[in-house]
């Protein structure tokens, strides 16, 4: 800890704290524009300069580490005058005429700073330089005319998303924000995560979907969780008049730390699927709108006689994007009361079955994504992580410039090739040989961190080379990199888990122990799950393959999920199909009864992400009048059939051993 004095106030802060943060802790506000708490301090805007005893010139407080005995002043006449002048310089630099700007009136930090400094006019004529507005991007607009060159966007693009698309070109007054080699943003390597928009203090980067729909003062932000994939990013949903205006990453989010990907931020904003607004029942071959009473009656009439008929009765399938409340009720109803043989999820345990089966014997062995923060090497097996779990991909990408090594081995060519220090392609189905081979090389070279007896190492290596098609030299390189790392992490994806091989998972686990990825408290072995509630579905045992074999009816709880063509095809032959969904799809088209339900934002629910965090999504919108909560619909069906359901999801998910600690 160091003690310093700011404006006569004694403050104690941990070593390494900047003066700006120290002041904030003591309740002293120092205005700033280029600083952002998630970004490396830059010291460019010069609004936060302070006077420090013993220094000839004032110093930017955002970059200045507090030191013992430092005496700082933030409100001298000279500083106040300077702040105002620097602000007026910014206002005169480019076009900052508020009336036409989408962020003015609350969201603009430049405007807010001017109010704070009691600026009443601009003492200098504006520059009148015009910059072209780049509107080639599907989600946002880059307007250099509004830019104050704080570089928050550039830093966010590199430091947070690890993408490094945005950059500053030219220099001095001609400086300009560009993408790649000065190409239009829409044609660039931008991965559309929108982090740059979220950090922009002015209207230089604005969101197309939310532009001119209201600013902070008119919008209620609600903390919730994204259901785009199993990473489980915390979001702030900005809602106005029962309409979603914008989705922002929650900087306090335990998994994503403020980041979101294209899907999380923009998919819900650009939803184009047709909403189902009334229950439908097939009459004379046509789906016709009916009352809830009629629809539920039809379902109950059809299903009731099938209850207890395990094999030829009902088959039930639920989306892993549904909240755990719905999934739990679904399981209780169909596996419990109906005693149906086939009760599973749309993922059919592809990403979880083998992992949970192993956990059944070994206990929890998977780690938390947090390990990536300290990892010096990540091995990705059968996982195209930057595309399948984008935000987890950001956590890897942004660690690369800081020295983390990345090794990817995947049967598909090109996966992570651009980023990985070593990207290898193995023959499909050769993963077990691959993992055994890596272990054998490490053991043979005596590089293991823990003892492992492998008498047949030579044969295993030979087998690995033969089966994977990877030359020995490259395998050895991968093995050495892995063994040489101090805190390695192994991530594996669907390419591994879909094989449903417990043996393969166990082999991976022993590799993780051998190289110290799993060691004492540290668990650096994680499987990348599927959709938002993949883990919950697995905990509820909804992870069996879905194979229709003489069942007389199928109940598909889709919620607001997308429906795969494969599922549609498999259900074509269902004699009777009940679909509970929010949106029209090929599946609802072929249903006999369609029950319209809420989307994720219209109902409260819990989600368990891939590393075991139980998180709550809030109800922020009210759905169309005839639409009902997906859990409630199941409850009503149960009621109509006199089937008692307890609906205690917290108890239900404890019936199976998790593969990771839940929290």
């Amino acid at each position, binding site marked *: 800890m160091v003690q310093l004095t700011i404006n006569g106030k004694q403050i104690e802060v941990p070593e390494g704290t900047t003066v700006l943060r120290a002041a904030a802790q003591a309740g002293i506000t120092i205005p700033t524009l280029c600083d952002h708490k998630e970004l490396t301090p830059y010291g460019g805007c010069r609004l936060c300069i302070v006077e420090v005893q013993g220094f000839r010139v004032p110093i930017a407080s955002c970059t200045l580490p507090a030191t013992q005995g430092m005496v700082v002043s933030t409100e001298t006449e000279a500083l106040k005058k300077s702040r105002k002048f620097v602000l007026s310089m910014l206002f005169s630099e480019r076009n900052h005429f508020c009336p036409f700007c989408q962020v003015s009136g609350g969201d603009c930090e430049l405007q807010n700073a001017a109010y704070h400094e009691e600026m009443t006019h601009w003492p200098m004529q504006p520059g009148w330089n015009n910059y072209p507005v780049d509107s080639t991007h599907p989600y946002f607009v880059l307007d250099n005319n509004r830019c104050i060159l704080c570089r928050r966007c550039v830093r966010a693009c*590199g430091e947070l998303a690890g*993408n*490094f*698309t*945005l*950059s*500053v*070109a*030219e*220099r001095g007054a001609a400086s300009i924000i*560009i*993408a*790649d*080699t*000065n*190409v239009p943003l829409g044609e660039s*390597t931008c991965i559309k995560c929108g982090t740059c928009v979220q950090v922009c203090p002015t209207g230089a980067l604005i969101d197309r979907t939310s532009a001119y729909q209201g600013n902070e003062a008119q919008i209620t932000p609600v903390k919730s969780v994204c259901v785009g994939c199993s990473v489980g990013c915390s979001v702030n949903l900005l809602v106005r008049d029962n309409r979603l205006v914008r989705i922002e990453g929650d900087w306090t989010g335990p998994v994503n730390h403020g980041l979101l990907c294209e899907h999380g931020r923009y998919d819900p904003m650009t939803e184009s699927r047709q909403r189902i607004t009334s229950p439908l029942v097939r009459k004379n071959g046509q789906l016709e709108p009916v009352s809830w009473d009629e629809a539920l009656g039809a379902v109950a009439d059809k299903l009731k006689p099938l209850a207890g008929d395990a094999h030829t009765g009902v088959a039930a399938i639920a989306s892993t994007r549904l909240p755990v409340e719905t999934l739990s009720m679904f399981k209780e109803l169909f596996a419990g009361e109906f005693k149906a043989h086939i009760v599973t999820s749309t993922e059919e345990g592809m990403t979880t079955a083998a992992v949970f089966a192993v956990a059944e014997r070994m206990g929890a062995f998977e780690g938390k994504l947090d390990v990536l923060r300290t990892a010096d090497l990540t091995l990705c097996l059968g996982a195209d992580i930057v595309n399948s779990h984008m935000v987890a991909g950001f956590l890897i990408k942004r660690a*690369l*410039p800081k*020295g983390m*090594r990345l090794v990817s081995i995947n049967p598909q060519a090109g996966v992570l090739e*651009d*980023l*990985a*220090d*070593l990207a290898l392609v193995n023959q499909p189905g050769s993963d077990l040989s691959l993992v055994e081979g890596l272990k054998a090389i490490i053991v043979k070279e005596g590089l293991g961190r823990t003892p492992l007896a492998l008498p047949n190492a030579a044969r295993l290596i030979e087998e690995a080379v033969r089966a994977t098609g990877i030359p020995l030299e490259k395998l050895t*390189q991968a093995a050495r990199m892995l063994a040489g790392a101090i805190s390695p992490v192994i991530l594996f994806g669907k390419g591994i888990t879909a094989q449903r091989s417990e043996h393969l998972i166990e082999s991976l686990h022993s590799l993780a122990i051998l190289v110290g990825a799993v060691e004492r408290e540290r668990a650096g072995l994680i499987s990348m799950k599927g959709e938002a509630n993949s883990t919950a579905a697995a905990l509820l045992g909804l992870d069996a393959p879905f194979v229709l074999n003489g069942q007389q009816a199928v109940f598909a709880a889709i919620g607001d999920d997308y429906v795969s063509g494969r599922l549609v095809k498999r259900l074509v032959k269902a004699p009777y199909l009940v679909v509970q969904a929010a949106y029209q799809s090929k599946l609802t088209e072929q249903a006999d009864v369609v029950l319209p339900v809420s989307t994720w934002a219209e109902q409260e629910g819990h989600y368990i992400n891939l590393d075991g965090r139980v998180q709550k999504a809030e109800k922020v919108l009210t759905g169309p009048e005839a639409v009902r909560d997906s859990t409630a619909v199941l409850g009503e069906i149960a009621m109509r059939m006199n089937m008692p359901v307890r609906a205690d999801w917290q108890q239900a998910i404890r019936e199976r051993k998790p593969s990771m600690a839940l929290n």
Partner: protein
Amino acid sequence: MTQIAEKRGLSDIVQTAVEKHGATPDAFIPILLEINRENGYIPAEAIRLARKFLHQPEEHVLVSEGQLYGLASFYHMLNTGVVGRHVVQFCESAPCHVQGARDLWKSVQSTLNLKAGETDPQGRFTLKTVSCLGLCGVGPVMVVDEDVYGNVTPDQLPEIFAKYE
């Protein structure tokens, strides 16, 4: 046909530059300088190639196109746009300015019929202004390609430019 030959040439230039200076961050600027020297300017394609060649597992060098372009456009000796066959660099710093460059600059612009930063339609000359070249002892100074001209007077200009086709 010629275009393919040119493309290959660029790839060779970039690869040679990376091999010569090494795939390390402190080689970025030397590599760009070399590409600029060999190719006259640094097209976007060269930046893409440089990024590719720089990405070597042993070195763990990660650099994006944006970062390289940011460099290329920051440093004045690096050109990100096409330049003419000959580049005229005119020193517009104060020492040359008071030693006669004020009038000479007007003559240069009118003789070449170009303004600063422009290239003539025939692609013969690109006119650039530069900051002090450290040759103020013989100012005003003008550099055409690699040839330095000191104590230049307006009447010498036609003769000087005639040497470059």
